[in-house]
């Protein structure tokens, strides 16, 4: 493809296909966006959305460059974003591999990304190239690799400039959850707070933007997401007294377009006149500051390190903010807005549309950064446009995605610290018998601080209408203590000790029906299930376990169909794609770690239960099964593999 590399003072254009018919209109719109005042700009985008004429539609899509992301996510040869698509379904229509033949799945090729730390990243596949990123350790932390998706041949790699000190402020292993792609570019978030734009073909660095500061405890671990020409990233560091934010960066220039804080006055949270929360308790001015003592909102957490979904029709993006800090809740009386909150925002301006605070004045580190799947469900006789959000607090939320109304919130795991969600007021009901007090040990806190489910993303099959949820099943003892804030150091104030929930198992892979609000089937796992899920049109669901099994199960029944024992435990995100050879592949990173896994991949003592913020109590036996790993595993059916001299390496 012939491209021109043109960059003017606005950085409008880089790597544009030459002779593109839309070039002219692109320039016009981009110039308008530069010149027009903000209000006019947003009405321009609204105008674009509402306009029905083909010409204007064409005009509008072209206004964000040659974005090919949305078409790629509809072509299941690809896996163009970590969550597969804007709805975050992690569903693929590929069906070469199905319930009848998945038992024959074999390793096709593999690749080591280097550091043997937690491998949480999702590989991306775009136009026959697979992109994957390493954790932040070793000589080349967060190294990016581009490989031929069918053969595994290395095309290029890119190593960001390292700052090993960043590892000291990463709460829960030095993970990356993946890359993003759009319009010929790969986007990388580094642990030390840089966002990098790379040429997807060559790996050449196009721009670098610094978004945060490790000396304030900030890091970035989430996979970036691209929407309408902007790359989104939020910060991590809810255990370090960080003030959370979501930042939009121009995909072409690396310039920050807007930043929405999770705490503080309305102007910082980008709350304006068009902010319409559904429930009364979230209505009022500057609640992000007033629901905190003094100026504690400045160090109050609400970081943004999970998943972003997007509804192109409403033009709303959705994400959740993390826990308030410190964990010792007595140091922050009030609702602590907008922590543990699901936000709907306009991706162009950042303006908040609605919010839902799942856990006002969170007591237990119950972030709400978990994925919100954009689904249309038939509920009580009518089609509802909803978000399905498996809450960290143990409730499966179904929320009207236009208004923020909670349609249902059913428990999906053992819950002792809440009594339910009041659908009239929208407020979760804490069980006050379990209220923490400084110096008092509260036992059997269920779910434990990582919640009934943490970041590990679920998958949705439109065929079975079921949500496949990997999650943990843990309770904890929790003792709050006073803590002082020192910038760049942990700001926690709790001694935590986790253990298996009732029944003795510590994880579960389940299928959930969000309409019937029931668990359809469940597979108990003795360790937390910290990997993501994948489901395909072959009616097979995939997930990995921390004790080194990658498993395929029947999406309808939950019956196990296949498993393989791998080099290291799984905490990664399985994906599937079609190679240029016409073969369906399934890929996942093997390498245990993350919050529950540092006991096996780092120098952490399994005999001290409170280690790793208390998670070691629940995974102290993990080193009996695995150590860290670094290997991308790619599987295919043997019959479909091209004949090669050395079949199935590693056997």
């Amino acid at each position, binding site marked *: 493809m012939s491209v021109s590399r043109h960059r003017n003072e606005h950085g409008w254009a880089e790597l544009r296909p030459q002779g593109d018919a839309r070039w002219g209109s692109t320039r016009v719109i981009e110039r308008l966006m530069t010149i027009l005042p903000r209000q006019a700009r947003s009405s321009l985008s609204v105008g674009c959305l509402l306009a029905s004429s083909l010409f204007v539609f064409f005009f509008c899509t072209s206004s964000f460059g040659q974005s090919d992301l949305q078409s790629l996510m509809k072509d299941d040869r690809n896996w163009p974003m970590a969550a597969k698509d804007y709805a975050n379904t992690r569903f693929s229509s590929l069906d070469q591999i199905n319930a009848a033949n998945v038992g024959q799945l074999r390793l096709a090729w593999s690749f080591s990304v280097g550091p043997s730390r937690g491998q949480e990243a999702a590989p991306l596949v775009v136009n026959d190239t697979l992109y994957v990123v390493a954790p932040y350790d070793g000589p080349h932390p967060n190294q990016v690799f581009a490989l031929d998706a069918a053969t595994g041949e290395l095309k290029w790699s890119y190593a960001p400039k390292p700052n090993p000190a960043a590892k*000291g402020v*990463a709460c829960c292993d030095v993970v990356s959850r993946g890359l993003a792609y759009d319009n010929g570019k790969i986007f990388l978030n580094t642990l030390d707070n840089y966002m990098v734009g790379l040429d997807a073909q060559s790996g050449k660095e196009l721009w670098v933007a610094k978004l945060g500061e490790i000396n304030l405890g900030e890091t970035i671990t989430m996979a970036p997401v691209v929407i309408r020409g902007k790359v989104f990233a939020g910060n991590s560091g809810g255990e370090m007294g960080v003030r959370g934010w979501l930042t939009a960066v121009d995909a072409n220039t690396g310039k920050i377009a807007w930043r929405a804080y999770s705490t503080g006055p309305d102007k910082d949270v980008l709350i304006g006149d068009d902010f319409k929360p559904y429930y009364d308790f979230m209505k009022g001015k500057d609640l992000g500051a007033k629901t905190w003592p003094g*100026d504690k909102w400045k160090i109050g957490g609400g970081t943004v390190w999970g998943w972003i979904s997007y509804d192109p029709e409403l033009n709303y993006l959705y994400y959740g903010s993390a826990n308030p800090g410190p964990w010792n809740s007595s140091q922050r009386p009030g609702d602590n807005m907008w922590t543990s909150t699901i936000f709907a925002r306009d991706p162009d301006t950042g303006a908040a549309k609605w919010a839902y605070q799942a856990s006002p004045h969170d007591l237990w580190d119950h972030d709400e950064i978990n994925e919100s799947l954009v689904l249309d469900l038939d509920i009580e006789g009518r089609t509802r446009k909803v978000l399905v959000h498996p809450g960290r607090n143990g409730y499966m939320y179904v929320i009207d995605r236009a208004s923020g109304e909670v349609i249902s919130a059913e428990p999906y795991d053992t819950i002792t610290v809440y009594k339910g969600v009041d659908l009239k007021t929208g407020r979760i009901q804490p069980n006050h018998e379990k209220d923490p007090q400084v110096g008092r040990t509260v036992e059997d806190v269920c779910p434990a601080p990582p919640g009934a489910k943490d970041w590990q993303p679920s998958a949705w099959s439109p065929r079975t209408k079921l949500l496949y949820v990997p999650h943990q099943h843990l309770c904890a*003892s929790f003792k709050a203590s006073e803590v*002082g804030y020192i910038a760049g150091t942990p700001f926690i104030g709790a001694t935590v000790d986790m253990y298996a929930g009732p029944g003795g198992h510590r994880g579960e892979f389940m299928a959930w029906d969000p309409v019937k609000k029931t668990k359809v089937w469940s597979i108990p796992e003795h360790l937390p299930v910290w990997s993501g899920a994948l489901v395909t049109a072959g009616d097979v669901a995939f997930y990995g376990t921390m004790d080194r099994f990658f498993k395929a199960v029947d999406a309808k029944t939950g019956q196990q169909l296949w498993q393989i024992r791998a080099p290291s435990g799984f905490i990664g995100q399985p994906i599937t794609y079609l190679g240029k050879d016409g073969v369906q592949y399934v890929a996942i990173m093997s390498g245990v770690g993350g919050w529950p896994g540092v006991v096996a991949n780092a120098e952490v003592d399994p005999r001290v*239960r409170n280690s790793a913020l208390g998670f070691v109590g629940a995974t102290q036996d993990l080193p009996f099964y695995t150590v860290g790993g670094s290997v991308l595993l790619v599987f295919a059916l043997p019959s479909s593999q091209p004949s090669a001299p050395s079949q199935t390496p590693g056997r």
Partner: protein
Amino acid sequence: MRVHAGDGTALAPLGFQFDVATGARQAEHGLERARDAFILRRDIEPVLRECGVPLASHRAEVLRGAQRRSGMGRSHRYRRPTIGIGLTAISALLLVSAVMTDTSAQPTRPPGASSGPNDMPSPGLAEQPAIQNPAVSPQNAPEQPNAAAGISVAPNSGGTGAAAMLNVPVTTLLPGNVAPPPRPANPVEGQAQALQRGMTYFVSFNCVGCHAPNGGGGMGPSLSNSYFLYGGEPADIYLSIFQGRPNGMPAWGTMLPDSAIWDIVAYISSISKEPSKTWGQTISRDAMSEEQVAAEYGQSTAPWGATQKFSDGQKPNRAK
């Protein structure tokens, strides 16, 4: 301050320094420790600034400290309120007074790290009262270490000053097959009060957030066993704290006085005394038969003294 001779001739300006002393009632050990932490964390600086007290620059303070690095083994008795300029009460918890001292005439006071010799701090961190939250916002946080509050930052023993410590290598690999230089000992090694103070600081300075209660590790490596990446001798641990280490350990020498670091070193040396006597470590279900009783059920400076059967991720049997 400008000083005039009797005949009215102005003499060269004299350097003055404010020392800040605090007092706590006898037997209020928790309060005392909270106060110590408050002082060491320099939480007092914003207050002094608010009151317009001129502050010596941190760099100047460190230089002065280095010049004084000899014969400073005595701890300061805070219980005796000293004369001087009274600052208004800055907190219900604290009684603060400022003393004017001519720096050239007498050595400044060692840090507010120690309690009197007759007072055994009470065990159990949970009972200690609230440590004042400094409420430093991220915006002004970077200012924090740049100025000293006039609180003296001085070592508390001879032979452990900067020069001696510079000779301590961070590796065991020495070119020329020469003998390693001697490593200075911890001047407070094993002292019960130092261990208690070290345990308090371990929590107050948020070491516990990374290294976990009882040093099990997490964000940072474990301190509960005999393996130390950057050396496990007291001098090695001292330097790791003072200088920081490139893979994520912050450089605490910018904030903590020597005596507090040695107290923390003493505590770490104590909690790392694991029961295993083997050179290496066997990792298996059979070999790992014991775990520590978790810290929420009581903390001590010798956590390996309370163990129970390894729980395999289940709720420990001992928990009520």
